[in-house]
């Protein structure tokens, strides 16, 4: 596989087009805006929890950015819903470790599921922040929702 194809895995290209969760979320418990000032990519991630619980009921986001950042937000939506806040934070940390790996090691597909497609991104230092943008916003939003 070429370096370019390892960066743009089909999962990423598909999510960048399909964009799950790319909507305004009604009655969010918290929303958080993140911007990458060096490239201008931006996203607002909103989260709603199940009543009386720390389980995530819904995620909605609005953003503008490259295929990596948009696909990452789409995968976030698929993976976050149904998890508890501590579970999402744990997953975020696992994702962060992989994204900082510079392509080293084999990502754990049991834990990371579709996020393993972003392993190739970790080799492109300039694009790591694109991959993390939605997750950093979600991290702040769920912390605020449970604060």
């Amino acid at each position, binding site marked *: 596989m*070429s*370096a*370019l194809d390892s*960066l*743009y895995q089909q999962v990423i*290209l598909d999510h*960048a*087009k399909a964009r799950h969760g790319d909507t305004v979320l009604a009655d969010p418990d918290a929303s958080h805006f993140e911007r990458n000032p*060096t*490239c*201008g*990519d*931006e996203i607002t991630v909103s989260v709603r929890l199940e009543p009386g619980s720390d389980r995530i009921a819904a995620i909605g986001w609005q953003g*503008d*950015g*490259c*295929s*990596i950042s*948009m696909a990452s937000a789409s995968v976030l939506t698929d993976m976050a819903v149904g998890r508890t806040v501590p579970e999402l934070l744990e997953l975020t940390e696992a994702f962060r470790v992989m994204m900082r790996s510079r392509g080293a090691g084999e990502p754990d597909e049991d834990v990371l599921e579709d996020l393993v497609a972003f392993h190739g991104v970790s080799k*492109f230092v300039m*694009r790591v922040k*694109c991959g993390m943008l939605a997750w950093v916003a979600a991290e702040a939003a769920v912390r605020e929702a449970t604060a």
Partner: protein
Amino acid sequence: MTVLVPSQPLTESEVAAIKRDFPILQQEVDGQPLAYLDSGATAERPRQVLDAERRFLEQDNAAVHRGAHTLAGRSTDAYEDARATLAGFVGAASPAEVVWTANATDAINLVAYGIANASRGRGGAAAERFRIGPGDEVLVTEAEHHANLVPWQELAALTGATLRWVPVADDGTWTAEDATSLITDRTRVVAFAHVSNVTGMVAPVAEVVAAAHEHGALVVLDACQSAPHRALDVRQLGVDFAAFSGHKMLGPNGIGVLWGRSELLDALPPFRTGGSMITTVTMESSDFMPAPERFEAGTQPVSQAVALAEAVRYLQGIGMERVRAHEEHLAQRMLDGLAAVPGIRVVGPPAGVPRSGLVSFDVDGVHAHDVSQYLDAQGIAVRSGHHCAQPLHRRLGLVATSRASTYVYTTEEDVDRFLAAVGEVRGYFGAAS
């Protein structure tokens, strides 16, 4: 009577010879020859410039304007010779009109904070002409690089003056009429880019200068994208200050130039103070040197100045009119090629209107970073992002664009490879269907 003959673009063999002077351009990226189309962000440096800096550091380096030893004398001479070279390059009345700065951003801040200091009473009676306050206006354009916008926002905030801006059209350009209609007796400073780093538009300098001076306003020209790429004559342009960076014109980082009329520079209060810029210092207060030294506090970037002068000589050896003709030819080739690619929106002046050798564009359905990444995989380096011009991109309705920019070493083959790759981008990202 002088008959002006349009200068010819560089021939293929001339460009090939120039390119051989640039060691960094002789490499491959991902197994493909490097096509460096990001000179608008930073230019590469020829062997001659690298050698001049090394030779200076190996033979002459010392602190300038202090000390009496042999190397101090040689380095001071080299430093001041470099200033004279730059003065000649931009048509300054004297070398004293050339102030060394860290870069153009630094140069514009020097003017903005000098005016702010004058507005707080620093600089005495001589600086009164610079004082601004509530009711006064600073005029910029919506197309400015942040370096020629944020310092003026700060000046307005510090003094109570009002920041106004010339709005741009849907293609990101503005006209002389757009600007002059906003210049009134309240206008005290007009600041704009000679050549836009995003649209490549060449500003109608003469008309704006005429209107500004009629109303007693100072004109500050951001010459970052003009000084490296076309003949620049600051006195013929009639501006009051001009700023540009060394690293965009085959020279080093960490060196830039502020040119200013000597009577203005001698009156403008400094904003950086300390060693080397004073005449008499007591425990209570200090007197400052005239320009340019009054703005050059602290140890100076001497080897960078020497290398920048060598870069200027390199450019003069080619001839700035030929540099411009070469880049305009390449820009036209890019525009013609991009026009044939479906889904490409080029920003900037319409066909037939003069523009510099850079082209910014949006690819429908593909983000600029993905465009840039796709090109990089073929060894083609372009810039992607907002190019430090967020307000302009917001006005264009775009978060980011891709920009291909040319220079003396750019070949037609570089441009053709770029065009071929851009033609494939939408297919790769599934945006063509």
